[in-house]
């Protein structure tokens, strides 16, 4: 496991998500990406209304035997697959879920030399909300040591400047990277997309990637592809 950065790709609207994703995939294949299956990250939110607690339960196909339970405070419990059975037991007496709030990010997975690139379409319930690109640099466990390298690849793919990583990762640049960090980055983006209006254009996230990209900028590389 190396360092992973998850970046939201700005799109002009929900209808442009598929074409933007296809263009990105073509660009990855053009730089030598070998398609290596598919990936999925999902998030189900459980509420305990009487106690006022919220719990997000996430799964990542990169770690299929693990379940991640993320609380509002940012605390993340990593558990084995039996955690799902436990949640079934505690639902609906202690926790409840709302219909149509499950978030899923699915798409193809590519291997490009030492990098793994994933292009995922985010759906909330049944509506498509955004596009995320995950970039993993496998040989290095510390973000600060490989950020420039990853940035170069992402900038060439997306055609937009990436000045710094998201707020979560920016605080942990010199720490050893763990799978929990990937989950926290996905949660950051899922929170932004949950708040966004599905009808409106999906633009750059408020959660962090700076660079002042515009929709027009975002379309530049994809239209070339």
């Amino acid at each position: 496991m190396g360092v992973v950065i998850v970046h939201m790709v700005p799109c002009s609207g929900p209808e442009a998500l598929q074409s933007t994703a296809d263009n990105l995939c073509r660009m990855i294949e053009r730089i030598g990406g070998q398609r290596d299956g598919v990936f999925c990250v999902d998030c189900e939110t459980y509420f305990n209304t009487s106690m006022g607690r919220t719990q997000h339960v996430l799964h990542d196909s990169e770690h299929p035997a693990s379940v991640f339970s993320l609380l509002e405070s940012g605390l993340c419990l990593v558990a084995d697959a039996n955690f799902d059975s436990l949640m079934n037991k505690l639902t609906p007496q202690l926790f409840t879920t709302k219909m149509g709030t499950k978030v899923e990010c699915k798409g193809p997975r590519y291997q490009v030399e030492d990098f793994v690139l994933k292009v995922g379409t985010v759906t909330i319930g049944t509506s498509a909300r955004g596009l995320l690109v995950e970039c993993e640099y496998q040989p290095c466990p510390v973000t600060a040591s490989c950020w420039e390298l990853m940035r170069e690849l992402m900038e060439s793919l997306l055609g937009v400047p990436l000045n710094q990583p998201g707020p979560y990762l920016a605080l942990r640049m010199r720490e050893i990277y763990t799978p929990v960090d990937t989950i926290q980055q996905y949660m950051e983006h899922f929170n932004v997309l949950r708040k966004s209006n599905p009808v409106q254009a999906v633009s750059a996230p408020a959660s962090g990637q700076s660079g002042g990209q515009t929709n027009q900028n975002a379309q530049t590389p994809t239209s070339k592809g």
Partner: protein
Amino acid sequence: MQPLGPAVPSALNGIAIAGLRLGEMRGKFEQQSSSVRIRQTLGGYRIMQAEAPIVEQPLTRKNAANLQEYLLQGSILDSSADVLLNRLRGLCDNSDSPVELFHDIEQVYTIKDQANQATFSLRARNALDNPQLPWQLRYVGQPEVGDKSRFTICRSVIEVGTSSNLVTWLNELGFRLDYEFVAKGHIFQKGRMKILVQKIHRVCQSGNPETLEPVSQSFLIELSVLAPPSQESLGEEMKAFADQLRPLVELEKVDHARLHVS
């Protein structure tokens, strides 16, 4: 995998803990994606690209089978425990290897849901002799003891291996510590049966598992199997094994509710 002991199952299931055993976890992932790779070699890269569904199966295991714990309990005085240990060593698997020991702390957390006044309790367990092992979160359901045709206690049990921040996680969810104890003892395995010979200790000073006081002058013996529901033949198997331990220890189905009342 069939659990071997209170904290040991989490150790064995520890491959699931991201951040703790990444190499093994990646191995798991490769196992899952091996079907895709086989298709890749057989059908060619292009074909796989066209055929691969976005996700083969959902990651959430909504209909995972709940396991039942079939349980018999008994006790033996400290003075006779060695005789029992010798007999178990002869009867159980791996009799030529040293007996496995454990030294665990178990904390029981409860939460009362104000909406429907229901109380839930979860157990957090950690190996004191090897704190690096994953913690274990356990849900234990109400035992069914009323069925006279059944020889054992039968209760729903869910065991989850977790990262070491389990106690903080429980507290943040609103669970509060009800009681805690330390169990020290020996684990044996016979087929799918697990036998624990353990001494239960009271923790005199909360938060300090060094200040211990034995609850009694006896060892608690537990014979248990985790299996899917309706395995009636299991009862016979456990009864046969329990008979081999007589008259040293009488393993019975203990009605905890009646113990509580008296």
